[in-house]
C-alpha cells in the first residue's frame, strides 16, 4: 500500500539520504555543543564583574558571535565556499556542509549558553570562591553542572534548527534529505518524494525534541 501512495520513492536512496542528514546533524550538533560552550563560557567569564573580566575580549567575541549569527544561512554557505574547498578540496558532499553548519549555529548556541550561565545564582559562585575553588574547578563543578538543563534544552533547539540547515545545505549539493527532496522531488515533479522526505525530517525532529525533554527533566533537580 505504501508503494501505491509513494510510487516514485526509491527507498534505498531515501535511506541513504536519511543517513546523510543524520550524519550532518550529528557531527555539527556535537561540534556546536563543544564550540558553543567554549564561546559561551568566554562570553560569561570575561563579562563585567566575573572572574576573567576583560572588556576588549568580551566585546570582540560578542561582535564575532553577532556577525555570524546575523548572516542568513544560505548566504553563509556561499561565503564559506573558498574555505570549504581549502579544507575538503570540494564543495559537494555532506562533509563539505559541516563548516557552514557549525559556523552558522555555534554563535547562536553560544548566546544560549551565556544566558544559561548568567542565570546561575551569584551567591553560589561566591560560595565556591569562599571555599578556595580555582576558576577551572568553578567551571567544571559549578558553572557547567548548575546550567546543564539550560545547556541541554539549548542544544536540543539548536539540533532541530540544524536539521533545517542541513536541508538548505542539501539544495546546493551537500546531500541528505533536503537534496533528495529538491532534486528528485521538486525538479522532477515527484511530489511524493518531497512529501516522504518531509515526513522523515519531521520524525527526526520529534525524536530529537523527545530525547532533549527527557534528558532535561532528568537532570533538573531544582
Amino acid at each position, binding site marked *: 500500500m505504501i508503494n501505491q501512495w509513494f510510487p516514485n520513492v526509491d527507498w534505498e536512496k531515501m535511506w541513504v539520504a536519511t543517513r546523510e542528514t543524520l550524519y550532518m546533524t550529528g557531527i555539527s550538533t556535537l561540534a556546536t555543543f563543544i564550540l558553543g560552550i567554549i564561546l559561551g563560557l568566554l562570553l560569561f567569564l570575561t563579562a563585567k564583574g566575573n572572574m576573567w573580566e576583560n572588556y576588549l575580549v568580551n566585546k570582540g567575541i560578542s561582535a564575532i558571535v553577532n556577525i555570524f549569527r546575523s548572516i542568513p544561512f544560505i548566504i553563509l554557505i556561499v561565503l564559506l565556499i573558498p574555505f570549504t574547498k581549502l579544507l575538503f578540496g570540494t564543495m559537494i558532499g555532506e562533509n563539505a556542509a559541516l563548516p557552514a553548519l557549525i559556523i552558522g549555529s555555534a554563535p547562536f548556541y553560544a548566546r544560549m549558553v551565556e544566558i544559561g550561565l548568567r542565570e546561575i545564582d551569584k551567591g*553560589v559562585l561566591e560560595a565556591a570562591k569562599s571555599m578556595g575553588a580555582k576558576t577551572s574547578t568553578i567551571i567544571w563543578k559549578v558553572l557547567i553542572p548548575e546550567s546543564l538543563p539550560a545547556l541541554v534544552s539549548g542544544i536540543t533547539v539548536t539540533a532541530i534548527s540544524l536539521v533545517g540547515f542541513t536541508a538548505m545545505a542539501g539544495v546546493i549539493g551537500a546531500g541528505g534529505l533536503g537534496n533528495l527532496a529538491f532534486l528528485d522531488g521538486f525538479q522532477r515533479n515527484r511530489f511524493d518524494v518531497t512529501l516522504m522526505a518531509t515526513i522523515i525530517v519531521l520524525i527526526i525532529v520529534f525524536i530529537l525534541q523527545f530525547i532533549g525533554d527527557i534528558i532535561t527533566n532528568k537532570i533538573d533537580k531544582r
Partner: protein
Amino acid sequence: MITIKNVKKIFSTKQGDVTAVTDVNLEIQEGEIFGVIGYSGAGKSTLIRMLNGLEIPTDGSVTVANKQVSHIKGSELRTARQKIGMIFQHFNLLWSRTGRENISFPLEIAGVSKANRIKKVDELIKLVGLQGREDAYPSQLSGGQKQRVGIARALANDPKVLLCDEATSALDPQTTDSILDLLVDINERLGLTIVLITHEMHVIRKICHRVAVMEDGEIVEKGSVLEVFKNPQQPITKRFVQQVTEPEKTKETIGQLLGVYTSGQVVQLSFVGQGAEQPLITNLIRNFGITVNILQGEISQTQNGSYGTLLIHIDGVESEIAKAIDYIHSQQVGVEVISHD
C-alpha cells in the same frame, strides 16, 4: 585569631566613590563568638567579606589565623580560604548536588581522597543533625535543613574560623533558634571562632560573647554583649537593645499604668548578670512595710549572663518606699522611678 587594622573599603561606581567601611579596628579572640550588628547598608557585609578575601580592603590590613588575607593572592589565598568557612543567608547550595555531595564539594576542592571524603562527610552529617536527609537535593529540604547542609559544608575542611553572613535571616524564629543552638554547640565542641553579622539583636543576645555595632561604615560601639545591653551608649545601640528588651507596647503600657496607680511609685528595675538571679522581690516584701505589685517583666538570657527589666508598683508609707528603693540600689540592680507626668 582575627585582627582588623585601620580597614577602609571604597567602591568606585559611576555615581562616584562610595565608602562602605571606614577605619575599622577589631581584635577577635580564638574561640569567641563575635557579632556585628547593623542595619542594611551599614557595611557589615563588606566587612565580613574582607575576612576571607572576597573583598580586598582599599586600605589597612586583615589577618585571620596568622594569614594576612588582605594582602595574599592566588593559590595562597585559596589555601587560606579553605580554613575559613562561610555560611550564607540564602544558603548558596549547588542544586545539582545532593546534601551529601554539597558537603563533599569543599573536600574535592582541597583534594581529599574519595575514601576520606566519604568518612568526613558522614561525620559532618552527624555533627549537624542531618541524618536521613543527606541524600536529598536542596530543593527537597526545608530552610533549616539547607542551612545545616551549609554549616556542614563550611566545616568540611576543619576551618579555624566560621563566618556567618545573615545566616538566620531567611529562617523562621523557631528554626533560627535551632540553627543558633547548633552554632553554639559547634563553637563549644570544636573551639571554633565564629564571626556573624546580623540585623537581629535576638541573634546577638542568644549566642554572641562580644558585639560590635556598625553604622555608616563605622564601628560606633563594641564590647561584651552584657555590657552593651546594660549600658548602651549610642542611639542606634539603644534601638537595637530595645528590639529584645522592650516590646513596642511597653511605652504605652507605662503611660496607662501611671494613670491607674495614683499613689505609690512605679519603678523600672534593670537586672544584669547575677542580679537577675537574686530573690529581690521577696526581700523587699519581707524587710519593708510595702506592697509590691509586678506589672510587667522580661528576662533575656545572653551568653555571659541574664539581662532583663521588671516593672513594679510599690505602695506604702513614703519613707518605707524610699528605704526600699535605696535597698534595691544596694543590690546592683538598676532602678528608675517613673514619675507621674
